[in-house]
């Protein structure tokens, strides 16, 4: 009986460990103590992107898509997503669009007291272009400091969207930059770096010499924890602000409110556009999918899926319908939006294209090919799992068999050319569209045009859009690329993706914190985008 006893003990230990971890959290919720002072803020955010592995270095991607806090950028976006000056005081572009001249403020100092000059700006961009970080700077030839407060950017391609690059890369000091910069960053932003306990937290304090408005919160502590731990910590009053899963939206915590922020962060399923002809990429991965390469399948799914049902279910109501991936942006095409959840129309599309259920198993076939494929999702992102499972159930209604499968990004890399993947995209920079649909943008390393889409009409619109310095002409062409009445990348045209919804970012925050007017949240959220407006009431 000794063996039974040890097995019993083992089992009790497992259950016990799980239960206790839950119980302590619950008990801790009873106490309601405020540890931090009034002008200090402790937050558990960025659970999506998490802690930057390479440190707080704009060259390797820190601050791309969100406020870098420690550094400041040349331009930035206000709450309406319009560009405003930050470090820059103005800019001009040459006739041919290849030379950009930017003037910067002349009284700005880094946290160590050294003045910020045009040389630092040029150094930052030249280093970032050479480092091949998260920001695509392939169009930048060279940045040069003309004098103390003027920088000249020479481009090799007249992309007007270059202005967006100028608003995402924080300026680093040339005199204090090294490989280890990310561990001990110096910048000119509203917050000064104090200390970083890897895997736990980073502490920032307000920069007294900041050229802009002084923040209300003098000390900012960002702690890194899993979403559920963060929720428990918020419940026990240890932190003032926590990003929580949308499934926690109905939870009530005394003294705290739940804030749900709209985003442009869309979730969509990529459809490999090429048929599988046995071709392989240079890394030896299979290209193409014989089911998703049929436009009827892609259209039927886009029309048959009920997006609102997905949001109500899989996203706990915390999201909005999405049809083209950029619906809400100024470059989103309203004409491309349609009524979805139309099962009859979806079935008709399939039938007209020759997809019929001949063997009575509920799944349609064509020429011996069953309408079934796998959809990959990353297990760490709960909303992607929920969406993949829900779409699979919805697709059964029109006779398409989608098999969801969890996979790490490493595995997705090997399969993305032949298998649909649940991706997340949401940028306030329209270049994202160019990279996703322009035929020559194909780059498996960054999932650019991973579906291998190639439509010469769309290519023309995209090319015109990205090179137009006139914002209106640019936006018009971005819109035409989605749908021009005959073709486009949107579901009405080639139905290249199945865009489902933009997700809301949900936070639980102290009741007395006034968050001002939050910015439109991009992919990964930018909760501190308007930190200067925040205060306690």
């Amino acid at each position, binding site marked *: *009986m000794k*063996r*039974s006893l040890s*097995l*019993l003990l*083992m*089992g*009790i230990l*497992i*259950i016990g460990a*799980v*239960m206790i*971890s*839950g119980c302590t*959290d*619950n008990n801790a919720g009873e106490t309601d103590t405020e540890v931090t002072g009034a002008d200090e803020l402790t937050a558990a955010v960025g659970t999506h992107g998490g802690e930057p592995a390479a440190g707080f270095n704009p060259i390797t991607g820190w601050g791309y898509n969100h406020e870098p806090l420690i550094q400041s950028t040349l331009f930035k976006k206000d709450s309406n997503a319009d560009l405003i000056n930050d470090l820059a005081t103005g800019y001009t572009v040459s006739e041919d669009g290849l030379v950009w001249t930017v003037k910067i403020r002349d009284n700005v100092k880094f946290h160590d007291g050294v003045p910020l000059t045009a040389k630092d700006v040029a150094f930052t961009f030249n280093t970032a272009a050479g480092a091949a970080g998260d920001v695509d700077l392939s169009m930048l030839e060279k940045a040069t400091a003309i004098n103390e407060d003027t920088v000249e950017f020479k481009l090799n391609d007249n992309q007007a969207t270059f202005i967006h690059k100028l608003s995402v890369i924080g300026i680093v000091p040339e005199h204090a930059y090294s490989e280890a910069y990310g561990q001990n960053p110096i910048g000119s932003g509203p917050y000064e770096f104090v200390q970083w306990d890897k895997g736990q937290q980073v502490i920032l304090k307000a920069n007294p010499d900041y050229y802009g408005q002084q923040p209300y919160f003098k000390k900012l502590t960002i702690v890194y924890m*899993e*979403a*559920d*731990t963060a*929720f*428990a910590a918020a*419940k026990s009053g240890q932190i003032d602000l926590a990003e929580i*899963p949308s*499934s*926690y939206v109905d*939870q009530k915590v005394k003294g705290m409110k739940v804030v749900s922020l709209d985003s442009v962060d869309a979730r969509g399923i990529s459809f490999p556009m090429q048929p599988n002809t046995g071709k392989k990429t240079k890394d030896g991965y299979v290209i193409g999918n014989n089911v998703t390469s049929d436009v009827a399948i892609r259209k039927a799914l886009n029309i048959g899926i009920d997006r609102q049902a997905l949001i*109500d*279910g*899989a996203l*706990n109501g915390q999201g909005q319908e999405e049809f083209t991936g950029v619906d809400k942006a100024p470059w989103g095409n309203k004409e491309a939006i349609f009524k979805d959840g139309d099962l009859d129309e979806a079935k008709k599309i399939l039938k007209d294209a020759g997809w019929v259920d001949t063997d009575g198993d509920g799944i349609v076939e064509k020429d011996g090919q069953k309408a079934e494929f796998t959809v990959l999702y990353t*297990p760490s992102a*709960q909303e992607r*799992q*929920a969406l*993949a*499972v*829900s779409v699979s*159930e919805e697709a059964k209604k029109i006779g398409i068999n989608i098999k*969801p*499968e*969890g*996979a790490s990004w490493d595995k997705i890399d090997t399969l993305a050319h032949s298998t649909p993947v649940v991706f997340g995209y949401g940028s306030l920079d329209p270049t994202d569209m160019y990279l996703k649909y322009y035929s020559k943008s194909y780059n498996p390393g960054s999932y650019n045009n991973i579906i291998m889409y190639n439509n010469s009409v769309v290519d023309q619109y995209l090319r015109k859009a990205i090179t137009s310095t006139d914002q209106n002409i640019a936006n018009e062409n971005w819109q035409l690329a989605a749908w021009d009445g005959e073709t486009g990348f949107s579901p009405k045209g080639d139905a290249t993706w199945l865009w489902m919804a933009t997700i809301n970012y949900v936070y639980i925050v102290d009741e007395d914190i006034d968050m001002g007017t939050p910015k439109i949240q991009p992919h990964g959220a930018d909760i501190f985008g308007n930190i200067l407006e925040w205060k306690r009431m």
Partner: protein
Amino acid sequence: MTASGTISKGLFRGFNLRQKTILLTSFISLLLIAIVASNFFIDNRSMSTDFESKNLAPSFDHPFGTDWMGRDMFIRTLGGLGLSIMIGAIASTISTILSIILGLLSSVGKIEDSFVSWLVDVFLSIPHLLLIILISIGLGGGATGVIMGVAFTHWTSLTRIVRAEIKQLKTQGYIQVSRNFGKSKWWIAVKHFMPHLIPQFILGTILMFPHAILHEASVTFLGFGLSPHEPAIGIILSESMRYLSAGYWWLAFFPGLSLLIVVLSFDMIGENLDKLMNPKKAHE
């Protein structure tokens, strides 16, 4: 005998110890068979999501409650246990076959014997869980990866038993006599060795079950092998951890308890079969 003393007072008055053991064993076996059989009757619909009924506490409709996608936890647990038992069955069968082959191989000669001992030592020197993860990733992950990972790591102890048993049998007088009478090696193996070894194989297989199941649960708990939407007991438990701070205790409690019951059941069957097949032990 204390064991018989307590049992004869209970429900099974009027049966002798042997009958009681048989009864108990068949009852537990029936329970396990029912779990596996129920898996064939679970259709996709009852496994699917129902966002209308998310995070419900246990009730008559949902005896184990529901999870964050509104899936019924009772059916999910059944599915997970069925999968565990299936993986356990395949893994322990493969393990047994491996240990028979290696056990017999060790009886062939000195070099073979030291090779088998060396192999056993190698496998025992690497932490069990680590080896399972390595093998399952090496074989491309998925359910096959987990099955093979568990199968290729659990044969060691049974191999040692088989090897020792054969060694001991070889020195027996009647084997020598048999050999002197001119019986062939095959005849000796079948008529003299087998009757001793078969109970070891059966018991070994059954007693390997709990370990295989617990290891399968640990591996899936750590996120290897199966996709997170599939029902496996480890996945269910690791998912439940995320919701404990929200107070959904039933997500961990019932699946954990069920796993415990299944593991203990197998162990009980093993112990009881041992008693039945090995009368000497029945009085211990």
